[in-house]
C-alpha cells in the first residue's frame, strides 16, 4: 500500500509538474511594435548585413576599397555586434542603376538582412536605395556622393529614399568647388562639361555649371557620353569647337580615362585644362594614364590627415599588403561604425538572448547620430542621410609616380560650402 501511494504521488507530481512550472512567472514574449518590422536574431546566431559594391568593371577598384574599409571596421569591432557574430552577403552592384536594383533585390529577399553597406556608385545607389527603402532596410555608403541621393539645396533630392545614409560627402558642393577654383584660381571663363548621364556625373556637372555660371563664366559645352563609350573624339571635337578653356568631366573609369587620353592626343585641346573628380582619384587610373594625366585637376573630398587616418592606412597596408588605392576606404570605415553603433542603440535583447532590431528604430538611431568621432572627422547624420562633412580639395596631378597619396598631398585648393 505504501508503494502504491508512492507511485500515485510520483504520478501526480509528474502530472502537475508542467502546471507547476507554468505557474512560475515568465516575462511576456517580445512584441515587435516597429512600424517597419523587426529582425529577430536568436542567441549566438549571426546578424546578417548585406554589402553592395562594385565588384566588376573598371570601378571594381573603388568597390574593393570600400569592402576593405568595411573589413577593417569589422575587424575593429571584433566581428560582432552585441555579442552576436556578423555575417555578410556581398552582391555586385556594379555601377549602374539596373545592377544596383537587382543586387539590392538579392539582399532584400532575405528578411534577416538588417542593413546594407553600399553602394560604390551613386547610379546603383539610386535604384538600390529605392528597393532597400521599400523593404524597410537601412543602407549606408562610404562612396556615393551624388546630391540626388540625399538633398539638393537643403531639400530632399528627387532620388532620396528614407533609410539611405552615406558618409561620403554630398557632392552638391563638389561641382561648385571645381567651378570656384576654375573661375577664381585659374581664371577660366569658358568651360565645357561632360557627364555620363547618370546622377552622379550629372549632379557634379550641374553643380559646376550652376556655380560657374553664377561666377560669370560661360559654359560653352555641356555634353554627355554613354557609359561604355569608346570613342570620345566627337565629344572632344565639340569641346574643341566650343573653345572651352577647361573641360570638367567627372566620369568614372574607363570613360574618364578615354576622355583624358584622347584629349591628350588632340593637339587642339593641348591648352584645355582638364578637370575630373574623386571618381578618378584612384591608383589604377593614375597607372593607366601615367604622365598624360600630369597637370590634370581633380576635385575630391577633403579627408583629414591625422594619426588615426595614418593608423588605419597602416592597418590597410598591413592587411592587404599594399597602400590604399583611394581615400574612400576611410568613409567606408566610418559608415560601418555609424551603422553598428546605431544597431546597438536600436537593438532590444530578450532575456532568452534573442536580439530584436527594429527597422525603423535603426533608421531613427542612424539619424540621431551626432558628433560621431569618425576617422574622417566628427560626423552627424542629417534628415536626408548625409553624415559626411562636405569639404573638398582641388588636387593637381604633378607627379603621377607619387601615386594617390602624392595626388592627395598635392592639394591646391580647399572648398567648403561655408566659404
Amino acid at each position: 500500500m505504501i508503494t502504491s501511494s508512492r507511485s500515485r504521488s510520483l504520478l501526480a507530481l509528474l502530472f502537475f509538474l508542467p502546471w507547476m512550472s507554468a505557474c512560475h512567472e515568465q516575462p511576456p514574449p517580445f512584441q515587435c511594435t516597429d512600424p517597419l518590422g523587426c529582425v529577430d536574431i536568436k542567441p549566438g546566431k549571426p546578424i546578417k548585413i548585406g554589402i553592395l559594391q562594385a565588384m566588376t568593371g573598371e570601378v571594381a577598384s573603388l568597390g574593393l576599397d570600400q569592402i576593405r574599409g568595411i573589413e577593417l571596421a569589422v575587424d575593429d569591432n571584433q566581428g560582432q555586434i552585441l555579442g552576436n557574430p556578423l555575417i555578410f552577403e556581398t552582391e555586385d552592384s556594379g555601377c549602374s542603376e539596373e545592377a544596383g536594383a537587382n543586387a539590392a533585390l538579392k539582399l532584400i529577399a532575405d528578411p534577416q538582412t538588417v542593413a546594407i553597406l553600399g553602394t560604390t556608385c551613386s547610379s546603383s545607389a539610386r535604384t538600390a536605395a529605392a528597393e532597400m527603402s521599400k523593404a524597410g532596410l537601412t543602407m549606408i555608403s562610404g562612396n556615393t556622393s551624388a546630391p540626388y541621393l540625399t538633398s539638393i539645396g537643403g531639400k530632399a533630392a528627387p532620388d532620396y529614399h528614407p533609410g539611405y545614409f552615406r558618409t561620403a560627402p554630398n557632392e552638391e558642393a563638389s561641382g561648385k568647388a571645381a567651378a570656384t577654383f576654375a573661375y577664381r584660381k585659374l581664371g577660366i571663363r569658358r568651360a565645357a562639361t561632360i557627364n555620363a548621364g547618370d546622377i552622379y556625373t550629372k549632379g557634379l556637372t550641374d553643380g559646376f555649371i550652376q556655380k560657374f555660371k553664377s561666377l560669370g563664366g560661360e559654359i560653352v559645352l555641356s555634353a554627355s557620353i554613354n557609359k561604355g563609350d569608346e570613342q570620345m573624339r566627337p565629344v572632344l571635337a565639340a569641346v574643341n569647337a566650343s573653345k572651352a578653356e577647361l573641360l570638367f568631366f567627372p566620369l568614372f573609369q574607363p570613360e574618364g580615362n578615354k576622355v583624358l587620353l584622347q584629349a591628350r592626343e588632340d593637339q587642339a585641346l593641348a591648352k584645355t585644362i582638364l578637370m575630373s573628380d574623386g571618381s578618378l582619384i584612384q591608383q589604377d587610373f593614375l597607372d593607366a594614364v601615367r604622365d598624360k594625366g600630369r597637370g590634370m585637376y581633380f576635385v575630391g573630398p577633403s579627408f583629414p590627415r591625422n594619426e588615426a587616418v595614418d593608423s588605419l592606412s597602416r592597418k590597410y597596408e598591413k592587411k592587404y599588403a599594399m597602400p590604399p588605392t583611394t581615400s574612400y576606404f576611410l568613409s567606408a570605415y566610418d559608415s560601418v561604425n555609424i551603422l553598428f553603433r546605431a544597431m546597438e542603440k536600436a537593438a532590444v535583447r530578450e532575456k532568452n538572448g534573442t536580439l530584436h532590431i527594429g527597422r525603423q528604430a535603426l533608421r531613427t538611431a542612424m539619424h540621431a547620430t551626432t558628433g560621431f568621432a569618425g576617422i574622417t572627422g566628427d560626423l552627424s547624420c542629417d534628415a536626408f542621410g548625409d553624415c559626411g562633412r562636405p569639404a573638398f580639395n582641388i588636387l593637381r596631378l604633378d607627379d603621377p609616380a607619387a601615386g594617390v597619396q602624392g595626388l592627395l598631398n598635392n592639394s591646391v585648393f580647399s572648398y567648403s560650402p561655408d566659404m
Partner: protein
Amino acid sequence: MAQFWKKLGITAKFAASFGIFLVLLLMIAITGYLALRYVRSAEKTIQASTEIETAVIEMENAMEKARRLHGDFFLHYPLIGFTKAHDLYVRQSAEQIARVIQNSTKLQEIYSDAGIRASRRSSHVNLNLYIASAKRFSDTSAESIALIKELADPMDGLEILFQRATTALQDETAVSMHLEELGKMMTASSKDYLLTHQRHFMQSSFNTLAVLQKAVENETNLQKSQRRKILTLLSRWKEIADKIVEVDIKKSGIINDFSLQTEATDAAALILIKQAKQDVGEAQLRISQAHTYAVGIMAVISLTGLILAAIIARVLNRSITRNIIDLTNSAREFQQGNLHVAAGPEGPDELGELARSFNAMSIRIRGLVDNLEQKVVERTAELAESEKRFRTIIEHTPQGILIADRENLQFLYANPAIAMMLGYDSPLELIGKNVTDIHPEQNWNTIQLVFRRTAPEPRFLSDTLCLRKNGTTFYADIVGGDLRYADTACRIGFFRDTTEKRNLQGQLERARKMEAIGLLAGGVAHDLNNILSGIISYPELLLLQIPEDSALRRPLHAIQESGQRAAAVVSDLLTVARGVASTREVANLNTIILEYLASPEHMEIRASHSRITCREHLDPHIARISCSPIHIKKCILNLVINAMDAIIDGGSVTISTCNRKVAGEEFRDMDVLPGNYVVLTIADTGHGIKEEDLNHIFEPFYTKKIMGKSGTGLGLAVVWNSMQDHGGSINVETGAKGTAFHLFFPATNKQVQAQNAQATLDQLRGNGEILLIVDDEPQQLDIAGRILETLNYQVHCAGSGEAAVAYMKEGRADLILLDMVMDPGMNGLETFEEILRIHPGQKAIIVSGFAESNNIRMVQTLGAGGFIKKPYSIEQLGMTVRNCLHENGSGQDSP
C-alpha cells in the same frame, strides 16, 4: 530494485508488469504513429516540393516566355509597327508575367505552410528574390514599353518626329549645297547612331549640327525667315535626337536590367528547383529512414517486449507463480504429514503474507505436534529411564529376582544377583530353566503348590532352601507375587540370601558370647594379675637377694614360673576379652616367625611332636607390618600347636609368608578390605575340621581337646581376637587333606625399629629421680616401690588418686606410675587430669592389669608417656620407667 519489487503487492506487481507491456505497446503505437507522421510529413514535403518544382518551372517558363515575348516585341515593333507588335507580344507577355506573379503567390502559400521545413529559409529568400525580380521585370517591362512607345509611336514617337525633322531639314537646307551637304552629314551621323546606338555618332551629328547652325547663320542666300526656320528645325532636331539618345540609354539600361533579372531569376529558379528536388530526395530518404527506423525501433521494442515478457514472466513466476506452486506444494506436503515444510519466501506481498501465515500455522501445529512428540519422547525417555533405572536397580540389587511363567514354571527373567546367588555365570543361563532347578527336590511340591495359587498380595517365604548350580544349598527369604510379564501371567520372586544374615547372627551370638566371657575374664584377670604380681615379682626380688646356691632358688623359680604361666592364661583371657592393652611396633613378620621358631616353646612343641615335620617358606620380600610381636608369636604358637595336634600319624606343618594384594571381589571371600597384605599361612596335613565345628572354632573354650590337659579352649579365640586387633583377617581352608589358616596382616610402609637389647640391671638404674607410685593395692605399691628403689629411684607411694593429688600439690615427681583402675575414689584418668592442672606436662606411666582402653588412650592423650601391664618383671618396669624419663616413651605405640 529487487527489494522494491519484493515490497510490492501482487496487484502492484501485475499492474507494473502489465504497465510495462502497456508502455511497450504504447511505444510501438507511438513509434508507428511518429513514423506515419514522419512519413506523412515527408510525403507532404514531397508533395509540396513537387508543387514548388512544378510552380517554379511553370513560373520560370512563364517568365521566360514573357521575356521572349518582350524580346519579340523589341525585335518586331520596328517591322510591324508598335501597335501591332504591342498587340502581338506585349499583352501576352503581360499575361505571362501575371502567371508568374500568380505562381509566385502560390509558391509563397506553399512556403508559408508549416509543413515546409524551416531550414528552407534560403528557398524563401530565393522565392522572394524571384518574386521581386518578376515584379521588377513587370515594372521595367512596362517602363520599356512606355519607352518604346515614346520612341516608336507611329503618331508622335520620337523616331517619326526625328524622321520628320530630318526631312524638314533636308527640305529647308536644299537651298544651299553647302547647307545641304552639312545636313546630309549630320543626318548620316544620326543614321549611324540609330543603327549602332553608338553615342559618338550622335555626338558627331551634333558637332555637324553646330557647324550647320553656324553655316546657316552665315549663309547669305537665306532669308531671315528661312534662316530662322532652319535654325528652329535644327534645334528641334537636336532636341529630338537628345531624347532619342536618352531613351536609348534608358532602353539600354532596361535591357541590361532584363539581363540581370534573368540572371537573378534563373539562378533563383534553379536553386528553388534544385532545393525542391533536394527536398524530395531528402523526404524520400526520410521516408526510407523512417521506415527503417520504425521497423528497427519496432523490432527493438518487440524484441525488448519479448525479453521483458520473458523477464516479467520469469519474475512473476519467481515472485508469484512459483510462490503459489511452492505454497501449494507446501500445503500438500503439510497435508501429507510433513510438518516441517516451510512455505516461502515470506515477502511483503500477499503471497508472502499467506506464506507467513502458513508458516506461522505450520510452526504452531508443528509446535503442538513436536510438543506432543516431545512429550511422547520425554515420556518414553522417562519410561525408558525409569525402566533403565528400575532395571539398573533390579540388575544391581543384591536381591535376586526371578520371573517365571506360572503355567510351565519356566524362568522368563533373572537378574544378575539371583544368577550370582545361584552360582550361574549369567542371568541368561537361567532363562528357560524350571523353578524346580533352583530348589531341592523335597521342596518341589511346595513350590508347585505356591505357583498354582494366585497371589494378589505378596507372599513371604522365609529361610527357603535353595539349590545352587553346583548343587550346594543356601537359605533365602523369598517374597513372591503375581505379575504380567511379556503378556504372560507370571510369578515374580525376590530372593534374599540369608546366609550372611545367618552368619551375622552367628557372629553376633559369638560376640555376645565373647563379651560375656570378656567381662568375666576381665574381672577375673584384674584380680588375678594383682595376685600374680606378687607371685611373680616377689620371687624375682627374692632371687636377687638370695645366694645362687640357695636351696630356695628352685622353689622360687617354680613359683615364679607358675605365676608366669598363670599370667599367660590371664593374658589370653584378656586378649580374648580385648581387654589387653598391647604396644605396636613395625616389624618383619619373617623375623617374628624366626624368633618364634627359635623360642623354647616351639622347641618344646617340636619335641612333643617328633613325627611331624615343620617347614618354613618365608618370602624374603614381604612387606612390613605394624603389630604386637608378642601376640603374633602367641598366635603362631597356638596355630602350630593346633596344626600339630591335628596330625595323628605324622605329617607336616608348613609356615609360610607372602605378599598379597587383595582387589576386586576377592575381599568378599577374604573378609578383608582391599589393599596390600602380608599373609601368614600355617598349614597342616591333618584330618581337617568338620563342618559343624568350623563355625565354632574361634569361640572361647570351644575345643575338641581335653580341657585343662591339652588346651584351654582359648587358642584360636586368642588368634581371632589378635587378628581383629591388628585389623587383619583369618581365612580357613579345610578339607580331608588338611587345614590351612591364612592370617592377613595389613602391610605398612613404616621402617622397622631397632630391637631393644635385653638390658642389664645396671642399665636400668636411675639417678635418684623422684617417682610417685599410685595404686589402690598396697601389695602393688610395695612391689613397685621395692623394684624402683632397687633401681635407685626415690619412691613415693599414694594409695589413691586423691592421695596422689594431695602429694602433688605439695611436692613434685619426675614420673608418676599410675594405676588405672582404682576403687573407690578417683581412677587413673581423673587423678592424672587433676595432677596436670597442678603440674602441666607432668610425665606418667599407666600401670594396669585390666583393659579399659578408652581410659588408657585418654590418659595417654593427656600426656602419659608409657604403659605397662601387670604383672611386670623388674626389667619391664625398669625399662619402661627409664624410657619414659629419658625418651618420652619412644618406641611405644598406643594400645
